[in-house]
């Protein structure tokens, strides 16, 4: 075994933002989960009127939107992490990441449509 010191520092100079945003989005989602859980318990279950009422409330709509955006961002970082570990060929990895981005953008559009589209 021959070991010689290598000195190349190969930092990409980014990384902490993704790491932090994944944590922040996680907190947002956890809070929203708590909120929905609370509402359901408060009403002692879910029927259509409660459900519909919730989605008529602008604050809840906004909260849901925030949750969805957090979810999509969280998912993006998470799935990218998975791809970085298991998809070795760079081309394939970029392709997977492109597909994921497209899916998430489409989901975001769908979310907007659900929340503020034709009711």
């Amino acid at each position: 075994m021959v070991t010689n010191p290598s000195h190349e520092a190969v930092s990409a100079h980014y990384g902490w933002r993704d790491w932090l945003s994944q944590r922040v989005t996680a907190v947002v989602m956890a809070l929203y989960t708590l909120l929905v859980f609370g509402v359901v318990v408060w009403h002692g279950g879910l029927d259509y009127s409660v459900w519909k009422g919730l989605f008529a409330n602008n604050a809840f709509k906004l909260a849901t939107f925030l949750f969805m955006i957090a979810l999509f961002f969280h998912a993006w970082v998470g799935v990218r992490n998975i791809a970085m570990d298991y998809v070795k060929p760079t081309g394939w990895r970029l392709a997977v990441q492109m597909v994921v981005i497209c899916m998430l953008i489409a989901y975001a559009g769908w979310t907007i449509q659900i929340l503020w589209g034709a009711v």
Partner: protein
Amino acid sequence: MAKSFPVMHFDAVIVGAGGAGMRASLQLAEAGLSVAVLSKVFPTRSHTVAAQGGIGASLGNMSEDSWLWHMYDTIKGSDWLGDQDAIEYMCKTAADVVYELEHFGMPFDRNDDGTLYQRPFGGHSANFGQKPVQRACAVADRTGHALLHTLYQRNVRARTQFLVEWMALDLIRDADGDVVGVTALEMETGEAMILHAKATILATGGAGRIFAASTNAFINTGDGLGMVARAGLPLEDMEMWQFHPTGVAGAGILITEAVRGEGGILLNANGERFMERYAPNLKDLASRDVVSRSMDQEIKEGRGCGPHKDYVLLKLDHLGPDVIIKRLPSIREISIKFANADPIKEPIPVVPTIHYMMGGIPTNVHGQVVAPKDGDPNSVVPGLFAVGECACVSVHGANRLGTNSLLDLIVFGRATGNFIVSENLKAAPHKPLPGDAAEASRARLARIDNATSGESVSAVADTLRKTLQAHCGVFRNQGLLSEGGPRAARDAHLDQRSQQDVQHRARRGARAR
């Protein structure tokens, strides 16, 4: 097999990447010389890593101290047999080299004022033997580990070239008797090479593994001594071996003297602190040979502990858990793992165990190997240097003072590096290799490769170790030694085993003269 080996050229080749080798390589690499350090293990696996207690230097951080007192302790410790000029140089330089290590980043323990903490140690005294003094700079009980890693790190910074898991085979001497490099084997591929060098430095460590019970690592097999002997050069003071008083009974693992420096005491089967009888002044902190002999005496006279009455106890529970955990964490770990005893609660069973080789390859203070020639007992062998435990600058005489081994590595590793740098090797041409540069190694490798029968290496080694253990113990006398010498030679079959080596050595010797 090819007639000769491929050749690589360097300004300097260092064999061994322990404390001494890497301190020397650092001087050379930082001076811009092309230097290759070859080592049969990765550098941080070298035995320096196992040094525990400290490195001695009269910084005077705890109370007044002087390099003269350090020098006195060293000479007294050596049984007045050390080379006093070399000892003077070492003790005078000690403070500088320790400060240097600190600047390299070594994580020394500290005092409240931010200076280096120093602990008491066996044989360290103030005012020429009057009272104990705190002189040992330490990193908990992992001083060697911190030192070796710091040196490796500093060498990474200096971009030293390491040849890791390369085994040096033989010195190459030309017709003038000058050393012009070494042959070496890359262990992974089995490929042999010639490393052609303007300076060859042996830093191969001690040979503690020739004994059956040893505090030494498995790698301490004395390879460098063999290379020197095969090259027809003499060794010095080879009968002078230090027993460390406190090796874990049965396992041989070292328990640092710092344990006694921090207040640990030795007890016999009667629970008596017997060192008070043998050394009323320094007691448990007397020098190592004194403590080892006293322990051996106690055991011989039937006051040993355990079912076979064959060890004594090292008690430190009275220091309290805080001191043990902060200053002696590895000792606790070793004791729990190897002696089944948590020193916070119970004493550690210990016996004197072979520890350090005071003798070795004779050198001067520049690390130049010397040998008798034309009536001059200290004639320099051009091109060859030796540092560290394998060398005998003779700063340790017949018994090394605790903490002086790390000091020896650093002081003489650095001095040798500086001397070689001052020789301006960069500009000098390589001395040509002799035509048969690889012959001895080639013949030996061929013999091993082509051998179809023989004995088991481990069986021969075991016999040899037992002989050494029986004849070169704590008490050594004329009768035991003169009986043991020939027996060891017989065990190793030196008469028949190495015919080719011997013939070669004879040829070389003739030429060198």
